[in-house]
């Protein structure tokens, strides 16, 4: 095809490709989806909890009075506390209005004051009244002695009467008609205790809980929801003299902040990377025309990579795009090599592309191998990057070989002389022996320092730093009871009954541990759900206690209390059938337990939520309970980080080996293979040693960065070894130009606030720089012709 038609086709297809990509692309911003593998049951559980767990979708809202406003009894806000009282709205009154407004927002599942159970809980408790004989206690044998002591019946009848006269009278009446001894409420008394403790923390009534619909890490939905919450609050506050302020906490608050931070990083990295590469390019070639065409080639490669990723995964993660932007710098290497040779040798772009094609293909192949190895480290996000790299590198290579010559047909190329390049090659040639000795000593010292290497064991250190938000979160949480979203007791079993039996055994232990001060509180499943064994035991104790004497004593007590014997005197026998989990979860109780009944593929998984606790003592306290274990999201994440790191190290080794294999297939000379790889491997060793000596904590991301640097450095070795232009100075100039563009693009990652980006920036930049410097030292060349060995 003629150059004219190649150019026309490129200019026609590029906008079409861009349009198709824009139409197809769906950008994912969920960091968890990027980093959390789902290749084990625990990892799946962790991923699910982080994304859509009940507590992860929960907002804690705190309404407080602004400084200067005074509060009276009941949290009443008044500008003038002295009599006569100036009637202004109180915190709890304002909060109640806010609750009503927020309940109407889209994406709000329910919202309630933290001091009271939600309305649906009260209604759900009524559901248990007919089943009181099966559910009155977790320890029926022990509690039954007190509950069915005839001597206590007079007091029980008095208590019932007071309850009927109390503010809860209508609720108690509906229970008492079916359960005169109020046994079903006995099972829920711990629940009441939880709300009483909460009420002490939130005397003003300004603590609200909002359960949202969207998954915790659906940042866009939560950004809209948070804006809507703020707007509702501001409107209501404005109508009430702006006397209040609102604070928000919860996982979605962090999610939105992180999303915003990453969004800024992506934009910054993309812009700076592109501008830096363009400036380096202009510095090297002094040609806006060439820059324009090369940038179009790279943009087309980027679009191909994005489209391929979108087609392969259904979505593209924002971090893939951020790291993909850095790939522009790598892919620019191929046109740069062509253009340097073209300018220096006065070849036509087509001749230069033909001349360098084998080296370009091998360089591209080793880079793809590096990225493929990255994709196999286990990170879902890096699988995307591998696909992205494969597609964009292939596109860049193809365009460099077949389209770029057409685009540059009339361009006038001049290449700048980079100072020091020839001098360094010359210096290495003249002092090779001494430098190699120094290199050998450095390698030994580096090897000796490796045992000092410190591994990062806390994945939190890779998260976006949000100190202010954390302080706000802590301040808000002091007004709420301390159920922790990330740590719980996990019960697993093959079937429901076994799971419930295990859960009950765990709850009994937790109760003892709570009494021992090991944990502040817990949210169990009893009596919302109870095993058939426990229900049968309850029913047996109840039936045993229900003697004619007991029934008569109860009637006497009722009469003495002035209550109706006709309506309350008959204590019904236990219902024939116990409650089964299926029928319970077909009622609104499902919503109440939605965060504790975990959907799993294998059997049943239940969680018992924990308040503040001592993990070590808790784990010790749960010892011996089958199918029961302490689950910590943080520990799990840290465990995953360790797994990732080990995989990364393995993949680093495998990646280097595979690159070596492909180079061997081309060179058929083991010595050349080793020499080609040596600069990059040595740079990895030196960087590890430097980190070891500096005390830097090394994470899987550091290793991943080095893997990338190896895949890039090996290209330098290949180009330097091949030296297809028969001129070491030109080849090293081309490599220097590539290094500069790589540094410009990956260096831009260092500007990101997301810790992952600077880590990659440092790893890759150090790796390619050291690898570049070592090439002329370790690979001996004769000035022209292919390089020889050291």
């Amino acid at each position, binding site marked *: 095809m003629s150059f004219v038609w190649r150019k026309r086709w490129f200019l026609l297809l590029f906008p079409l490709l861009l349009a198709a990509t824009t139409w197809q692309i769906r950008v994912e911003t969920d960091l968890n989806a990027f980093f959390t593998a789902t290749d084990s049951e625990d990892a799946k559980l962790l991923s699910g909890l982080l994304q859509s767990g009940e507590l992860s979708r929960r907002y804690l809202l705190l309404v407080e009075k602004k400084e200067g406003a005074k509060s*009276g*009894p*009941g*949290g*009443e806000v008044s500008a003038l506390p002295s*009599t*006569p*009282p100036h*009637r202004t*709205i*109180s*915190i*709890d*009154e304002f*909060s*109640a*209005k806010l*609750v*009503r407004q927020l309940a109407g927002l889209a994406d709000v599942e329910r919202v309630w*004051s933290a*001091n*009271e159970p939600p*309305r649906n809980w*009260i209604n759900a408790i009524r559901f248990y009244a007919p089943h009181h004989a099966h559910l009155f206690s977790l320890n029926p044998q022990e509690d039954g002695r007190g509950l069915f002591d005839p001597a206590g019946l007079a007091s029980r009848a008095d*208590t019932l*009467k*007071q309850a*009927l*006269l*109390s*503010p*809860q*009278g*209508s*609720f108690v*009446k509906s229970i*008492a*008609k079916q359960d005169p001894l109020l046994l079903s409420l006995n099972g829920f008394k711990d629940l009441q205790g939880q709300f*009483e403790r909460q*009420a002490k923390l939130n*005397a003003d*009534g300004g603590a609200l809980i909002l359960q949202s619909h969207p998954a915790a890490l659906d940042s866009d939905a939560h950004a809209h929801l948070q804006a809507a919450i703020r707007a509702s609050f501001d409107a209501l506050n404005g109508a009430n003299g702006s006397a209040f302020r609102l604070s928000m906490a919860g996982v979605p608050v962090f999610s939105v902040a992180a999303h915003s931070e990453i969004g800024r990083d992506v934009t910054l990295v993309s812009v700076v990377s592109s501008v830096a590469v363009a400036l380096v390019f202009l510095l090297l070639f002094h040609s806006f025309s060439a820059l324009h065409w090369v940038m179009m080639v790279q943009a087309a490669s980027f679009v191909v990579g994005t489209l391929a990723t979108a087609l392969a995964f259904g979505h593209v993660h924002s971090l893939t795009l951020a790291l993909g932007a850095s790939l522009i710098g790598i892919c620019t290497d191929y046109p740069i090599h062509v253009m340097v040779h073209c300018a220096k040798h006065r070849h036509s772009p087509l001749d230069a592309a033909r001349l360098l094609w084998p080296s370009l293909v091998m360089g591209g192949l080793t880079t793809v191998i590096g990225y493929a190895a990255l994709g196999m480290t286990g990170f879902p996000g890096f699988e995307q990057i591998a696909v992205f790299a494969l597609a964009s590198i292939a596109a860049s290579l193809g365009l460099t070989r077949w389209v770029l010559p057409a685009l540059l047909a009339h361009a006038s190329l001049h290449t700048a002389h980079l100072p020091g390049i020839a001098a360094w090659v010359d210096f290495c040639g003249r002092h090779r022996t001494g430098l190699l000795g120094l290199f050998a000593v450095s390698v030994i010292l580096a090897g000796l320092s490796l045992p000092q290497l410190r591994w990062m064991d806390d994945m939190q250190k890779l998260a976006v730093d949000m100190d202010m938000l954390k302080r706000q979160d802590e301040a808000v949480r002091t007004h709420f009871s301390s159920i922790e979203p990330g740590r719980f007791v996990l019960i697993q079993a093959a079937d429901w009954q076994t799971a419930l039996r295990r859960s009950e055994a765990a709850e009994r232990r937790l109760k003892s541990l709570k009494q021992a001060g090991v944990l502040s509180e817990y949210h169990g499943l009893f009596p919302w759900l109870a095993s058939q064994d426990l229900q049968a035991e309850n029913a047996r104790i109840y039936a045993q206690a229900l003697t004619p004497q007991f029934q008569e004593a109860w009637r006497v007590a*009722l*009469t003495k209390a*002035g*209550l*109706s*014997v006709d*309506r*309350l005197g008959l204590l019904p026998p236990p219902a024939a059938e116990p409650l089964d989990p299926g029928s319970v979860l077909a009622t609104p109780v499902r919503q109440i337990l939605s965060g504790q009944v975990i959907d799993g593929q294998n059997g049943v998984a239940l969680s018992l939520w924990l308040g503040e606790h001592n993990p070590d003592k808790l784990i010790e306290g749960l010892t011996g309970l089958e199918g029961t274990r302490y689950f910590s999201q943080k520990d799990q994440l840290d465990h995953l980080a360790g797994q990732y790191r080990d995989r990364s190290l393995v993949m680093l080794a495998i990646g280097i080996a595979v690159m070596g294999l492909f180079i061997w297939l081309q060179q058929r000379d083991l010595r050349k293979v080793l020499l080609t790889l040596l600069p990059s491997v040595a740079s990895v060793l030196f960087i590890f040693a430097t980190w070891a000596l500096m005390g830097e904590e090394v994470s899987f991301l550091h290793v991943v960065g080095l893997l990338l640097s190896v895949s890039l450095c090996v290209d330098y070795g290949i180009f330097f070894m091949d030296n297809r232009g028969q001129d070491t100075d030109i080849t090293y100039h081309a490599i220097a130009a590539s290094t500069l563009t790589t540094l410009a693009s990956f260096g831009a990652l260092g500007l990101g606030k997301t810790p992952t980006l600077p880590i990659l920036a440092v790893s890759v930049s150090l790796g390619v720089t050291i690898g570049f410097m070592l090439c002329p030292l370790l690979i001996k060349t004769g000035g022209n012709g292919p390089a020889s060995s050291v």
Partner: protein
Amino acid sequence: MKLVLCLLLALLPMAGLAEEASLADLFVRIRQSGFAEFRYEETRKLELASSPWQAQGYMLSAADGRLIKLQLQPKRIIMAIAGERMYYWDPEQKQRHAAPLGQAGLAAGQITVFRSILQGHAEELQPTYDFAGEKHGKHWVLRVTPKPGQSDEDAPSIEISGDEDGRKQQVLIRQADGESTEYRFMKTSAGPELEYSIRRLLLEATGD
């Protein structure tokens, strides 16, 4: 029970009702306008009780909507409304409850009725409640009844009656489930000096 207290306290200012029994006048005069203390006697007929239950004590109200029911017999209990919350304190049983008025369950609609009357917004209730005033000599009666098919099925009927001198009134609340509560009031005191008592009792009820 919350409902009963709310309704009761809301209708307490009826103590000031004078000769004319037109609805507009009644509503205007119902509106809370100052501190007042009433001695009360309460008779409740509960569905699950074998005989009527009786109690007595004092009620205190403030212009800003705070309402206190201090039961002294048969035992001391404080029930109160402040802002949007209701408080309950039984010192003998050491039982304390606090809940937003909005969480009055099925009776939430009736509490809205109460607050509308108290705040002088009775016109908001016209779509769902019927109001009727009667006068027999020196005795007057205001009946507030839910409109059939328009109100919540649990909405109560309220009957407030009194004499022209305004010192004694009765409030009879009949609930849809057949339970009823009757209060007899006698105004014992009025004036801002009651603020101290109201604050003290409210603090005791809230547990602060």
